């Protein structure tokens, strides 16, 4: 077995060709000094990749991720990324990423909206092939007529692909999720693709303060020989894989194989919890858990909810918040517990479908407490004032109903 350490790959404590110190992940995440930097989300993507020892990255332009993938290209020119190319379409890009991941490389790409959907067939293939590729989805509208505005509908399509899905609230989340995402996704018992999602423009094009790890420290390289499936580099002796390929066979062995493999992917998602919880300080974050009114949200909607809570606080109304960090694995138990005392649960979302509200409704008991909304869609922002107004309207309506019905 060719599991010998490749002498070409610098190990922890050594420096890579750019002079970066290869650092133990936990040390990098928690002990490295952090310095504040005022950056756009796109720049944050570049900075995370600079520190991620990425072997291969594929780019294709689509608003709003184009800037980020161009910046990764600059990193390649500087020598921080092994190889980099412009693909021909998102479908091909994801294929190119898959090929590189099959070959044992750490891979990065990013896309958005229509690009995500064009590439779609690849994502369950990645998961089924256990390729720990990281893709940053800078979500935007997918509807016709053409839009380039932020809208989180595309996430609804991603939920059952078998990928890990983490939803960043801010540029800071984006930076941390990208680095920690590689660590979790590459664990042998997880080994799945990860989608780090950020809301297009609201994160990518907004300048915000981010606490950055040092530029001269980087994650250890990916070790493809820790993969639960064979890395396709002919370094491990080949084996004829099957006597009888499962494809296009209708027999119980084939059914069982496909069923158990799908369940295994889902089990691997669940097994990612134990690595994710300490790294992200839980799959959710809770504020004012004793409040009767709770807001449950992910992504930028969390930020807007935080501001709404401040406005309520000024009015003397206590409102709580559950921030969902990971959509897959879905923090079912955590949300149940955090909303136990809530009488009214509002789910603000940047899409018309209300997919997050649906997820929550199917998760908690007494789900009549869940109000799907407020919603904005098509790129509109959700001013905190509007959240407050919507909630007040709803509460007044409820009070009136109670009065009428005694």
């Amino acid at each position, binding site marked *: 077995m060719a599991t010998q350490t490749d002498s070409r790959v610098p190990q922890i404590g050594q420096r890579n060709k750019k002079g970066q110190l290869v650092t133990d992940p936990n040390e990098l995440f928690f002990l490295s000094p952090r310095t504040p930097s005022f950056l756009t989300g796109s720049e944050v993507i570049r900075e995370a990749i600079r520190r991620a020892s990425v072997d291969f990255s594929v780019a294709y332009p689509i608003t709003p991720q184009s800037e980020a993938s161009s910046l990764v290209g600059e990193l390649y020119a500087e020598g921080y990324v092994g190889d980099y190319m412009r693909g021909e379409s998102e479908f091909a890009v994801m294929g190119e990423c898959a090929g590189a991941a099959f070959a044992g490389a750490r891979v990065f790409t990013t896309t958005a909206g229509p690009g995500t959907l064009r590439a779609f067939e690849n994502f369950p293939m990645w998961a089924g092939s256990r390729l720990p590729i990281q893709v940053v989805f800078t979500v935007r509208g997918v509807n016709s007529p053409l839009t*380039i*505005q*932020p809208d989180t509908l595309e996430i609804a399509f991603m939920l059952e692909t078998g990928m890990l899905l983490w939803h960043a609230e801010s540029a800071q989340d984006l930076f941390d999720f990208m680095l920690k995402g590689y660590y979790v996704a590459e664990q042998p018992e997880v080994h799945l693709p990860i989608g780090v999602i950020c809301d*297009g423009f*609201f994160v990518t*094009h*907004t300048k915000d303060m981010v606490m950055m790890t040092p530029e001269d420290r980087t994650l250890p390289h990916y070790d493809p020989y820790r993969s639960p499936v064979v890395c396709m580099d002919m370094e491990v002796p080949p084996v004829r894989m099957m006597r009888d390929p499962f494809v296009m066979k209708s027999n119980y062995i084939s059914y069982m194989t496909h069923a158990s493999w799908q369940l295994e992917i889902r089990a691997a998602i669940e097994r990612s919890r134990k690595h994710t919880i300490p790294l992200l300080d839980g799959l959710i974050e809770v504020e004012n858990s004793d409040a009767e009114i709770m807001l449950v949200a992910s992504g930028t909607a969390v*930020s807007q909810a935080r501001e709404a809570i401040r406005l309520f606080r000024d009015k003397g109304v206590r409102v709580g918040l559950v921030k969902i960090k990971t959509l897959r694995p879905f923090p079912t138990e955590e949300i149940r517990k955090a909303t136990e005392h809530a009488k009214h649960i509002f789910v603000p979302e940047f899409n018309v479908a209300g997919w997050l509200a649906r997820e929550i409704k199917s998760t908690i008991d007494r789900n009549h407490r869940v109000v799907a909304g407020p919603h904005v869609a098509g790129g509109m922002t959700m*001013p905190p004032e509007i959240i407050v107004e919507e909630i007040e309207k709803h509460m007044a309506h409820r009070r009136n109903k109670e009065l009428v019905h005694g």
Partner: protein
Amino acid sequence: MKKRINIRMSGLGGQGVVTSAHLMAMAASHEGKFAISNPFFGAEKRMAPAESYVRIGEEKIYDRGELVFPHVVMVYHPQVITMGKSYTMPFYSGIKDGGLIIINDDIELLTEEEKEDLAKKKITVYYVPATKIALELAGTELATNMGMLGALAGLTHAVTMDGLDKALQDRFGKKYVASGGTATLDEAIKKKFAKKEMLLQKNLETIRRTFDEAEAFAKKNPTFAVNVS
């Protein structure tokens, strides 16, 4: 809620409204304040409506996206008002009571109806001929945004001259990654001045002029205060 100032900058593509929002936020951030800036999310084209937003405050700011309820509305080009080249109608839609409007011109642009409406909301309207000053001091209308920033800082003291100076150094003094159109304009303005220092100095002079004038106006109008909530 602790003090917060939300500024909406409306202009035309190529006038540097996005750059000004970033500069403003960078200046505030240099002064230890919290700030977030972002452009309007669209395919901006030269001379088409363009908008950007900056939020500055004393505690962490989460709010992002376009500003629906601003304290300050800045008009970088008269056509924002006269030709309705604005994302919202009227251009001051959503402005908070006691707010401030800064317009780049030296002639009256508002209708009687609009003036009445603004008076009811106790809005201060301040005219600054930023493009004229830019041409006079920097020799290019590309410094219009500098003039606008000076006026904004002079009126609100949301940031200091020192903060703006540092932000300018950040933006033009080192390698900066800008998207397509912005990068082209950056090149244009750099060519205008032989040296980077010259560019920085001329920009700063423009800011200083409008800052001083605006600060004097604020002193002379003691009733005026941006009602920062």
